[in-house]
């Protein structure tokens, strides 16, 4: 784990105030893709907060992940518009196709899956996003194509 990067985040917040806890966690996650144990310990040292308190805050919010995400991080929208357009089916298909549940990373490290509430593209429902790239009007057929392409892309690396 790259602790220098965490130190850089910490240095951005020299006045160690509690109100910077969430921004620091957000910065760490942006760099590492998740909130590592090391980062919690280091932030705790800086803000003089016990790790348990930090986990208490971090787990309250849906944004933070504690597992390393896969090479392709899939976010599926479960907002209202997407639900009406059948996002449950898409979610179930992804889970079956990748053999992982929401919040998990596939064993080959290729895919991870996260559910989000409204990606803000409701007109294009149902929406999924892979590493931040949006796919609109996703149905099973489209999904299998997307996954196939990603597998190919991941395999060649």
């Amino acid at each position, binding site marked *: 784990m790259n602790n220098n990067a965490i130190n850089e985040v910490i240095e951005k917040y020299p006045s160690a105030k509690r109100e910077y806890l969430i921004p620091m966690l957000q910065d760490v996650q942006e760099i590492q893709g998740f909130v590592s144990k090391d980062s919690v310990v280091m932030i705790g040292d800086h803000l003089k907060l016990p790790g348990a308190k930090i986990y208490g805050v971090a787990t309250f919010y*849906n944004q933070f992940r504690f597992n390393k995400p896969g090479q392709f991080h899939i976010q599926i929208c*479960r907002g*209202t*518009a997407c639900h009406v357009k059948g996002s449950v089916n898409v979610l179930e*298909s992804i889970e079956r196709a990748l053999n992982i549940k929401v919040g998990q990373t596939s064993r080959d490290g290729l895919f991870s899956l996260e559910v*989000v509430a409204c990606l803000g593209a*409701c007109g294009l*429902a149902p929406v999924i996003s892979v590493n931040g790239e949006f796919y609109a009007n996703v149905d099973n057929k489209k999904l299998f194509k997307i996954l196939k392409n990603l597998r190919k892309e991941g395999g060649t690396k």
Partner: protein
Amino acid sequence: MDRAVIEGDPYRLIEGMAIAAYGIGASKAYVYLRAEYPLAIQRLKDAIEVAKTYGFVGNNILDSGFNLEIVIKKGAVAFVCGEETALIKSIEGKRGMPKPRPPYPAVSGLFDKPTIINNVESLANIPNIIREGAGWFNGVGTENSKGTKVFALSGNIANTGLVEVAMGTTLKEIIFEIGGGIPDGYKYKAVQIGGPSGGCIPESEIDIQIDYESLITVGAMMGSGGLVVMDENTCMVDVAKYFMGFIQSESCGKCIPCREGTRRMLEILERIASGKSNETELETLERFQSVLHMTDLATIIQDASLCGLGKSAPNPVLSTLRWFRHEYEEHIYERKCRAKVCKELLTFTIIEDKCTGCTLCAIQCPTDAILGSKKHPHYINFEKCIGCGTCLEVCNFDSINVE
């Protein structure tokens, strides 16, 4: 909607905030923004910088001696943080759990300082109202709901996107004229308005004027301004279940009526929509009984919850029960889902005459529930079928029947 203001014209928000801050004598203002909207965050950041260079934000604004610092706070994704006191906790770097009022934030809010909280749309309206006068703003709208309102149209509707209409415009106009109606020849069923804790408006009430008071009479609310249109392929029990699931997982857990009550309601809804095979008589009885408890439960959650999330949590259920009771009854007594959404109540069969034995469905079926040999009609093993609908989707010969 608020995102559109920030992405499209962030200066309106900044100006509104500056005026509001001047009005109450605040020197620090926060914008709490969803982390999922990076573009909005970036645009607002840039706009604040620009405003600073022109002296509209910062120290001694326009030589008035008034200072204002605007800070952007990225929300860490929790619905309850829209509630005022939870939002304050979240900015302070704590868990976003509401606290009892009084003291109201206006007396003791962020870092125990007096705080006012307003919505982005509200603030962005201020500059225009000050420039054009209150009469101008009040010239549009109804007796008690003034001005315009922006709605986000989505769901089963031809034109999706944002629409700004005068308060008092009818729902029918919004859906069938502006929205272009329901696509693919399906029939209108309901519109869900006001976000997860809003309500549904059925076809019988489609002539309703949209304003704050009228919405309340049909058990809905303005809320976030989301309008999700649903056609006849939407199951209202499923919609209620969906919202309850969302609210249940977003409940902060501070008070028992909200935390446990929403969970019980969700369980009841799940039972209504769940499978018909191997149910014991006792379970059937419980399924019938539980529905009777649902309205009691709803009243208790409404009365005894601390914050707005809990107080409005039963709305989707109450509203669907009020307008679509017959759909609940069908689910409970006839074990039927007319919209063919509640999978466990559906039976998939293959129409022998139509099936050509192309084997496509058998290959695609995730549970290997489809059996048969090439060029002969296939059949579905009910025990294995999970009702995922894959066969229906892949069949090129319309030979899958769903009931």
